[in-house]
């Protein structure tokens, strides 16, 4: 029991230590440890856990670890897996933050970080472009009419724009926007998903 819990902990410790950036960049390493090495799940199951990890709040990698741990050893398993994943971050980040404080006033460091800020902005803008492509704009998959696809695009584009405007220009809290968007989604799309289901029959 203890041995299997520790192997969960250390497998996810390695995953946390050797992957940069989280999200999809974590998949190959997850697969190697969870599927190939320890055979805790098969590949399909892992991908399903990964998808489910996006359907609840929080960090996707931690959620995936929790689910793999739960499947293997119940609640204790998920606890050890999640702890294993976050431990490297805690060690690395606190060390860097503690050291960096002493160098932040050096001119070289100031110049470097001013440059880096532009890169962070570009990375975030680039992520937004990808998200708009993936999460906002609907693609014309079934070769439906142009008019239909334009109409289908209206609600998500409006929701996205409304969230942006409310935060930037009205200072509304992200909490309210998240709740509001989920409720709007239930009202707007519940009927639609039913229609789609009927279409597929």
């Amino acid at each position, binding site marked *: 029991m203890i041995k299997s819990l520790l192997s969960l902990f250390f497998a996810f410790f390695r995953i946390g230590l050797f992957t940069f950036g989280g999200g999809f960049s974590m998949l190959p390493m997850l697969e190697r440890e969870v599927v190939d090495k320890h055979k805790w799940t098969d590949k399909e199951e892992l991908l399903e856990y990964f998808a489910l990890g996006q359907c609840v709040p929080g960090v*996707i990698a931690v959620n995936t670890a929790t689910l793999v741990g739960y499947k293997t050893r119940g609640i204790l398993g998920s606890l050890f897996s999640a702890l294993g994943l976050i431990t490297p971050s805690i060690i690395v980040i606190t060390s860097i933050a503690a050291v960096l404080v002493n160098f932040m006033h050096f001119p070289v460091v100031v*110049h*470097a970080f001013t440059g880096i800020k532009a890169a962070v902005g570009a990375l975030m803008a680039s992520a937004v472009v990808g998200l708009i492509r993936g999460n*906002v704009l609907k693609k014309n998959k079934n070769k439906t009419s142009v008019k239909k696809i334009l109409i289908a695009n209206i609600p*998500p584009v409006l929701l996205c724009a409304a969230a*942006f405007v409310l935060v930037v220009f009205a200072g509304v809290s992200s909490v309210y926007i998240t709740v509001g968007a989920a409720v709007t989604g239930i009202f707007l799309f519940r009927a639609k998903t039913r229609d789609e289901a009927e279409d597929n029959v």
Partner: protein
Amino acid sequence: MDLLLLCFEFFKIGIFAIGGGLATMPFLTQLAENYPHWFTLEELTDMIAVSEATPGPIGVNMATYAGFKIAHIPGALIATFSLIIPSFIILVSIARILRKFRENKYISAGFEGLKPAVTGLIAAAAYTVIRLTMFAGDTVFANDTVNYKSVILFAVLFTAMQVKWLRKTHPIIFIAAAAIAGIVFSF
């Protein structure tokens, strides 16, 4: 008292930040605006850079860094655990019915609404960070001093990221290049 507030704020992020690490960013920019003595927007931008350039999930790294900034090691631990506890509780309690949960009509409809809105929230966080880096003032339109070097570097990097064969390039490469540019051209 600050530790309790820290715990509460990150617990809140853990409940409402849906869509992974990036989704925590709008909440963190709002923390910087609401609690300026915790960390400034400028410091937050440095934290994002360090979180992207170090191992581990970005969401966890950012929480650890923000917590450390606010209350050193206890802060780092409290922020990180508060962030992951809500989803941990949710997952463990619905683990048996997860598949049904995902296929539930209301849940998937809710997500249809959430996905574009979260994109808007992340865009707002990106806007805040970009405005801070490029323009020294409060708004883009008022009499601000524009940081031309940053604007050019941003434009070059953003364009590079859209190029197809560079799209898979790791963020660390861009961050390192920007650091070197910053030193060489003394930003």
